[in-house]
C-alpha cells in the first residue's frame, strides 16, 4: 500500500506548477457612469502545461469574484412587550460587498471541504465573524443571515456549472455585476482543481470606479461638503422657483 502511495504523492507534487492559468478578462475595469446599469464580465483563459494532460480525475475550474470587505452589523428582532424590536446584534467584521463564485461542476465535487476551509472559496467561508458576544449562542445564524439577505438581493451568488471547460485546456465564464455595485478593488481568483484538490491558483483584480460626473459629485461631497450642501440647496430653490414661474406663465397665457 505505502509503496504505491509515495510515488503517487511525488507525482502529484510537481503537478502544482505543471498546470497554470493564462487569463483573459473582457474588461479589467468597470466604469460606473451616470447610466450604469450592471455589466457582465467575461472571464476566460487557457491552461498552460509542460507535458500532456495528466491522468486521473478531470480538471475543474472555480472562479471567485469578491468585492471590497466591509464590516456589517447584523441585528435580530425578537418579540418583547408585544412589539418586534432589535434585541441581539453581531458584528460580522468582514463580509465582501459582492461575492460570486462560479464552478465547472457541483460545488462539493470540484472542491473538498478542507481546501475550501483553507482558501475560503465558498460564500459561507468568505465572510468572517468574530464579534459575537458570549450571551449569543447561535452566532452562526447571524452570519447565515448575511448570506441569505445578500443572496436575495443578488449580491452573493453561487453559479454551479457556470464555467465551461473545453478539452481540459480552455475555460470561460461570465459573471454579471449587479447595478448596485460599490466602488473598490474586486479581487478575482481562479482555482484549478483535480479530484477536489487545488492544484493552481491565479489571482488578479478588477477595478470598479465611478467616472465623469459621478466621480466629480462623489469627490465634491467628500472634500467640499459645505459647498456640496449649498449647491444642493441652490438647485432645490432654483427648481422650486422655476416650476412656480412656469406655472404662473401657463395660467396667464
Amino acid at each position, binding site marked *: 500500500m505505502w509503496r504505491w502511495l509515495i510515488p503517487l504523492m511525488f507525482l502529484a507534487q510537481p503537478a502544482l506548477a505543471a498546470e497554470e492559468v493564462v487569463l483573459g478578462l473582457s474588461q479589467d475595469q468597470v466604469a460606473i457612469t451616470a447610466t450604469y446599469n*450592471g455589466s457582465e464580465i467575461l472571464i476566460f483563459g487557457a491552461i498552460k502545461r509542460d507535458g500532456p494532460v495528466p491522468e486521473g480525475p478531470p480538471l475543474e475550474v472555480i472562479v471567485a469574484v469578491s468585492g471590497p470587505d466591509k464590516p456589517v*452589523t447584523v441585528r*435580530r428582532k425578537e418579540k418583547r412587550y408585544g*412589539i418586534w424590536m432589535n434585541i441581539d446584534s453581531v458584528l460580522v467584521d468582514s463580509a465582501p460587498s459582492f461575492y460570486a463564485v462560479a464552478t465547472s461542476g457541483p460545488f462539493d465535487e470540484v472542491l473538498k471541504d478542507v481546501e475550501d476551509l483553507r482558501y475560503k472559496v465558498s460564500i459561507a467561508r468568505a465572510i468572517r465573524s468574530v464579534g459575537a458576544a458570549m450571551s449569543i449562542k447561535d452566532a452562526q445564524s447571524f452570519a447565515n443571515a448575511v448570506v441569505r439577505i445578500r443572496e436575495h438581493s443578488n449580491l452573493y451568488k453561487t453559479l454551479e456549472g457556470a464555467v465551461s471547460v473545453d478539452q481540459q485546456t480552455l475555460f470561460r465564464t461570465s459573471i454579471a455585476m449587479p447595478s448596485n455595485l460599490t466602488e473598490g478593488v474586486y479581487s478575482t481568483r481562479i482555482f484549478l482543481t483535480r479530484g477536489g484538490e487545488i492544484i493552481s491558483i491565479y489571482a488578479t483584480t478588477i477595478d470598479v470606479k465611478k467616472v465623469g460626473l459621478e466621480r466629480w459629485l462623489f469627490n465634491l461631497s467628500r472634500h467640499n461638503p459645505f459647498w456640496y450642501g449649498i449647491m444642493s440647496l441652490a438647485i432645490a*430653490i432654483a427648481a*422650486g422657483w422655476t*416650476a412656480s414661474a412656469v406655472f404662473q406663465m401657463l395660467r396667464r397665457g
Partner: protein
Amino acid sequence: MQIYLPIAEVSVNAFLLLGLGGLVGILSGMFGVGGGFLMTPLLFFIGIPPAVAVATEANQIVASSFSGVLAHLRRKTVDLKMGTVLLIGGLIGAALGVVVFNYLKSLGQVDLLVKLCYVIFLSVIGGMMFVESLNAIRNTKKGKAPKRKKHGWIHGLPFKMRFRTSGLYISVIPPLIVGVCVGVLAAIMGVGGGFIMVPAMIYLLGMPTKVVVGTSLFQIIFVTAFTTMLHATTNFTVDIGLAVLLLVGGVIGAQIGTRIGVKMKAEQLRILLAMMVLAVCFKLALDLFLEPSELYSLGPGGGH
C-alpha cells in the same frame, strides 16, 4: 431609463423617481406637509440606503416647499409673522432634538423609538383630525355655522402679538412652544414636521386652514434646509442625483397640489390628510406588531 446614484451607490429607474416625486409634491402642495413621512419609507422600499434616503428627502422637501410657498404667497395665504415665530421655536427645538437623538443613540433602540413616535403621533393626530373634520362636514350639511372657539386660556397669556393674515391676536408663547415641540420631533424622526405642525396650527393656535398650509410650508423650507446642510457636512449622505430626480417631479406636483387644495373645502382637505396620516400609521404599526418575514437586518458595522 436607469440612473446610477453617485452617493447611494445604486442604480434606479429615473421615471419611477420622477413619479414618486410628483405624487408626494401634490400632497405637499395640498396639505402643507413636506411629505417626508411618506417619501422616506417609499425610498427604503426601492432600495435606497436609509441614511441617504432621509438626508436627500430633506433636500427635496426644500424644493417642493419653496415651489408651494411661492404659489401661496401670490394668494396671500402665508402668515410670514406667524411663520417666523414658529421657525424660531423650530430651530431651538431642532437643536434640542439632535441632543436627545444622540443620547438615545448611545442607548441603542433609536429605530424603535422613531417608529413608536410615528405610530403614537400619527394615530393621535390622525384620529383627532378625522373625527373633527367628520363632525364639521356633518354640521355644514345640517346648515350649522362652524363654531370657532375664541377665548380660551391661551388668550390670557402675555406678549400678545397681532397676526393679521391669520386674523389672530394672541400671545407669542403658544406658537413658540408648538415650534419647539415640532422641532424636537422633527430632529428625532427625521422629517420636516409638517404633519404635526399643520394640525397644531389648526387646533392649538386656531389658525384658518387656508393660511396654515402656506405658513407650514414657509417654515419647513428653513428647517429642511438646515437639516440638509447638517447631513451634507456631517454624514455625507445627500445624494444630489436622487434629489434632482425627486425634486423635478416634486416642484411640478406641488404646483398642481396647491391648485387642487384651493378648490377644495377646508374640511375635505383635513379629512383627506387625516386618512393619509392614519394609513401610514397603520402600516408602521403592522411592522411593529406582526412577525417580520426576515428577522435579521444588516447595517453598517464598526461605528465605534
